[in-house]
């Protein structure tokens, strides 16, 4: 079971997708099967944290089989504290995605759920793959279902958004492919194995110049996905046009693939280069935090605002990762999970509103707290979680990230922390625009509050937002060792500059 | 010495025929120029001692292929060619390209003159049909047989494409 659980979790959705493909076009049944499949997947994925040996660094549940012997490509999957929780996040969000799509998708239902489930497989695979080739396969495999989901089920400018999303990511990830192949060729015997390549680089067999290019090759693929300023402009478009489930998974999981990649591959494999490049990366991350927030502040469109808020939030994650401090990186990983939950929730909520109003423009809303009190409450919880209110999940991550950033370089911590203010600004502004004030549109007075299905889909995220804010050590006990294992080389590489940084931020 | 003179004569006829092919505007004239080229090439083959090839050259090329050409020219009642300027590129890029190409090959050959040495036509069995037959029906048996497929599709093609509208 320990050997095959990861395979099972990864490919259950695919099996479900195949099953759906051959089912008659009975929409109700299709939805039900999709929901059941995703729930079963979630159920199986719960096996991971239960059986996980906490406090141990290294990959567990590993399975390693030769896939393509000629090129020494392996089907090597494994989970550590970081990837396990990201998998859980994925399996947790997909059923919700199915639920929120229950009514909003009524055309080409079968294709929708097939794509959704295929997407799930690919996303889980990305987090679990320990063979770089396999990783790339999963990585690219996420692209198609997502682009199709946006392009087929999105709103007015869906085609533009889908193509933009696809091209942005595609162009960026080919550089990663080149880098991966380069590493493969550099290894003796040729290998794609994560641990092997990591060791290869650690041994210093590759010249610094080449390493820098390799680092950049990986970095650009991940930076686009994150998305890091200034590579972020696909995100608002993709989000605005995507169907709700698409947005939820895009924000909830796909963006995490970028940060996960940065942590696992850039920091994990290229510690010295990470150190070397940290200054400008962190600068970009901080620009992203502030810039994203400021632009979010002036958006006239609910979804676009949330999208830009993602730019800002993911900036925290990148900042955390590239501090190479335990706290910062722990926080970054935690923030990945948090962002998945809270922004996922926000997108679900936005979708529900869209189902009722068929628009995301703020000027069509206002005063909705009166007709929709329950909805307003859930929205508030999501907003607060996103704002980073203590005792909600967002705070834990943000605090740790900023604390780490501050330790790394005081200025980073200070600039990053200003994001706390901006976050409050745009999120509260958004909340006010939607829920407060008088109702200006008569049809809004009779908007139905969310129904039971919608409540069922929202409760899990609301509860998670709280639970993760209160008992974070439950997660941290597995994240902590994994992070320390991943950043150990990077933080060692930093010993020399660390001293100067500390004194700069401290006594003078 | 005689060889050289003969070569120069027939070589010049060849080149003249080729030039005429280019110069003539009516395809039938061009075709006839080509026949001239081929015939004089056959002579050059003889100069080289390749009797069999020379014979086949006259029979197949000048005899069969060129007849086919003339036949088609007649069939389609092709007139003198129009002076269209459809391709500037052919003039602007193609001609210099070809000149360069010819010059390069020619330069190579001249520079290799010493290495290559001369051609002598002595009492060898070089052009003997018997020797060629040996080669053709033993070593080159497979290509020879496979040629049948080639001819078969050529026939099929001609039939398919040339068939009258039904």
């Amino acid at each position, binding site marked *: 079971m320990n050997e095959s659980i990861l395979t099972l979790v990864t490919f259950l959705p695919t099996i479900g997708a195949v099953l759906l493909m051959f089912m008659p076009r009975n929409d109700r049944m299709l939805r039900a099967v999709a929901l059941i499949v995703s729930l079963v997947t979630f159920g199986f994925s719960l096996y991971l944290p239960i059986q996980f040996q906490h406090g141990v660094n290294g990959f567990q549940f590993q399975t390693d089989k030769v*896939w*393509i*012997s*000629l*090129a020494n490509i392996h089907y090597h999957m494994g989970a550590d504290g970081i990837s396990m929780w990201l998998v859980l996040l994925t399996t947790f969000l997909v059923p919700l995605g199915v639920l929120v799509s229950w009514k909003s998708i009524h055309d*080409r239902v079968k294709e929708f759920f097939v794509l959704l489930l295929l997407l799930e497989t690919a996303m889980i695979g990305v987090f679990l793959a320990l063979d770089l*080739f396999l990783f790339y*396969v999963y990585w*690219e*495999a996420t*692209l*198609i279902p997502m682009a199709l989901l946006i*392009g*087929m089920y999105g709103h007015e400018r*869906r*085609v533009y958004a*889908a*193509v933009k999303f*696809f*091209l942005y990511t*595609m*162009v960026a990830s*080919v*550089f990663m*492919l*080149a880098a991966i*192949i*380069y590493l*493969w*060729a*550099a290894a*003796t015997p*040729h290998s794609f194995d994560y641990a092997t390549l990591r060791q290869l680089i650690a041994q210093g*067999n*590759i*010249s610094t110049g*080449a390493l820098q290019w390799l680092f950049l090759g990986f970095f650009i693929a991940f930076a686009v996905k994150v998305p890091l300023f200034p590579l972020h402009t696909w995100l608002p478009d993709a989000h605005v046009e995507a169907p709700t489930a698409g947005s939820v998974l895009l924000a909830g999981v796909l963006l995490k693939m970028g940060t996960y990649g940065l942590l696992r591959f850039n920091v994990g494999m290229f510690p010295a280069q990470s150190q070397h490049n940290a200054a400008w990366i962190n600068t970009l991350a901080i620009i992203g935090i502030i810039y994203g927030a400021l632009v979010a502040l002036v958006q006239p469109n609910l979804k676009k605002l949330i999208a830009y808020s993602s730019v800002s939030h993911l900036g925290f994650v990148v900042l955390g990762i590239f501090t190479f401090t335990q706290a910062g990186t722990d926080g970054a990983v935690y923030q990945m999970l948090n962002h998945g939950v809270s922004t996922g929730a926000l997108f679900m909520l936005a979708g529900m509103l869209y189902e009722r109003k068929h628009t995301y423009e703020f000027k069509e809303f206002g005063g909705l707290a009166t007709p929709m009190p329950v909805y307003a409450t859930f929205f508030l919880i999501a907003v607060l979680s996103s704002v980073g209110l203590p005792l909600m999940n967002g705070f834990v991550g943000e605090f740790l990230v900023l604390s780490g950033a501050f330790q790394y370089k005081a200025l980073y911590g200070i600039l990053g922390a200003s994001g706390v203010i901006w976050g409050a600004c745009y999120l509260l502004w958004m909340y006010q625009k939607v829920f407060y004030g008088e109702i200006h549109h008569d049809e809004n007075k009779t908007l139905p509050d969310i129904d039971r299905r919608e409540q069922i889909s929202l409760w899990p995220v609301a509860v998670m937002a709280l639970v993760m804010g209160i008992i974070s050590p439950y997660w941290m006990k597995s994240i902590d060792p994994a992070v320390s294992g991943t950043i150990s080389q990077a933080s060692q590489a930093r010993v020399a500059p660390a001293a100067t940084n500390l004194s700069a931020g401290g006594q003078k | 010495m005689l060889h050289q003179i003969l070569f120069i004569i027939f070589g010049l006829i060849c080149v003249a025929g080729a030039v005429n092919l280019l110069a003539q505007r009516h395809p039938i004239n061009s075709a006839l120029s080509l026949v001239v080229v081929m015939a004089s090439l056959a002579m050059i083959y003889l100069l080289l001692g390749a009797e069999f090839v020379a014979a086949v050259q006259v029979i197949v090329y000048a005899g069969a292929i060129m007849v086919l050409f003339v036949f088609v020219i007649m069939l389609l009642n092709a007139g003198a060619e129009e002076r269209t300027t459809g391709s500037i590129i052919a003039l602007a890029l193609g001609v210099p390209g070809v000149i360069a190409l010819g010059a*390069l*090959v020619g330069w*190579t*050959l001249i520079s*290799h003159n010493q290495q290559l040495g001369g051609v002598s036509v002595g009492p060898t069995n070089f052009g003997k049909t018997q020797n060629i037959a040996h080669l053709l029906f*033993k*070593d*080159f*048996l*497979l*290509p020879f047989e*496979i*040629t049948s*497929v*080639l001819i*078969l*599709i*050529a026939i*099929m*093609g001609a*039939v*398919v*494409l040339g068939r009258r509208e039904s």
Partner: protein
Amino acid sequence: MNPISIDQYVRILPELVLTAFGIAVMMIDPLLKPSASRRPLGYLSLLGTIAAMGATVVQMHALATDPSFGTPGWFGMVRVDNFAVFFHMLIPAISAICILASLEYLDTQKINTGEYYGLILFGTVGMTLMTSAVELVLIFIALEISSIATYILAGYRRRTASSTESAIKYFLLGSFATAFFLYGVALMYGATGSTDVLAIQRALAPGTPSLLAYVATALMIVGLGFKVASAPFHVWTPDVYEGAPAPVVALMSTGPKAAAFAVMLRVLFATTGTGWFALIWISAALSMTIGNFGALIQNNVKRMLAYSSIAHAGYILVAFAAQNDIGISAAIFYTASYAAMNVGAFAVVSHFASGGERYVSIDDYAGLGKRAPLLAFTLTIFLLSLIGIPATAGFLGKYYVFTAAISAHSNAMVWLTIIGVVNSAVASYYYLRLIVMMYMREQTVAEPPTPATPSMRLALVIAAIATIWLGVIPGRTLDRATQGAADLRPKTTAPSADLKAQQASQPATLVK
């Protein structure tokens, strides 16, 4: 004395089988009513291609059991080694799928001549023979067989101006290029005294080859480059593909191309000493760039795929340029994966084109996802594969090509790889355009598409499965490609191979 043993016949068994079936087709054709559908002939020729694949299996068996089988036969004319066997399997398979796709097409276009199938079969004879031939005479004849067959097929819709134009362009330029190739052969003969590829290789191996050999190689590159449609000899491709009947394009963009690449591998690696590396490098870069950028603005699907085929030829040339064993096997594998996806794509195009090939504009594909889900789905798979999305043949092929390039451990190859990956990213745009059309736009063609016939469905499904198969479990195929590559590089070059291995074991010294 009977020097021709059974063994010898086994060496040309697929060709014999195909010829036999071709003749059978021609014999039966007159027996059918002139206006009747030629479907039965199609089935017969399909059987022929399958039989040819069976014959290849016999060859494989022979190769596995008898070590001497891999030596040249027919007085040094053919050599059925792993390299040839790979293509002997691939090319009849391509023909089979094209025939499957043609069954419906011919009926739709109201073409009732059995020669079509005959030409395909005979053309296949030429292509298969090209891959096993090791004597330039035979290579030339086989090349001409395959070429002439495709010239004719390209003009098969002879009442249509575009089709005949396609044929005449292909024919004239093809012959033109053939003349260059031939001139090259002549000079090579002059330089080495032989037309036997292996003998040429032997002659060129020691010492520096004469200048004549360089000139000869150059002219042969021109001719072969034309056949594989690599820049700058690619110019004919878009016009010819656009005008030719769709299933024929499916064939000629894959079959003769695969065969031509096989010849190119054999010939160029026989002349390794002449250092054509930079030429191939430039040609690869040009092909990829011209192909992909040219395709960006096409509105005709066939023409777009034509440009794409130029680009794909460029990817294969990248593998050539790597000049190592991985490169050869990558090129071999790529031809197979490209065949799978491209045949499939053109099969869909040929179905959807309808009578008179009316619907070949990208806009006509709008809403196809709803109207014909299977067609759209399979076409999506092919397009994704052409983009190079993982888990498809196209990705693995591309990956393997780039692997070869980077394994060459030279900066030039790293740059070529970068050009390649950037190009493949650019390329994704125009393939994606078609997917977008199918799934994200509303239908514009008023006419409902005719449902695909079972034979067409079968063709599509086979191609799709092959595409996925090669992308997910390529192990066997890759192994075969590697064996083929090993056979292609005789042991005479062993020292340099060892050198490469040595270099590979010390990457640090190379990449610095």
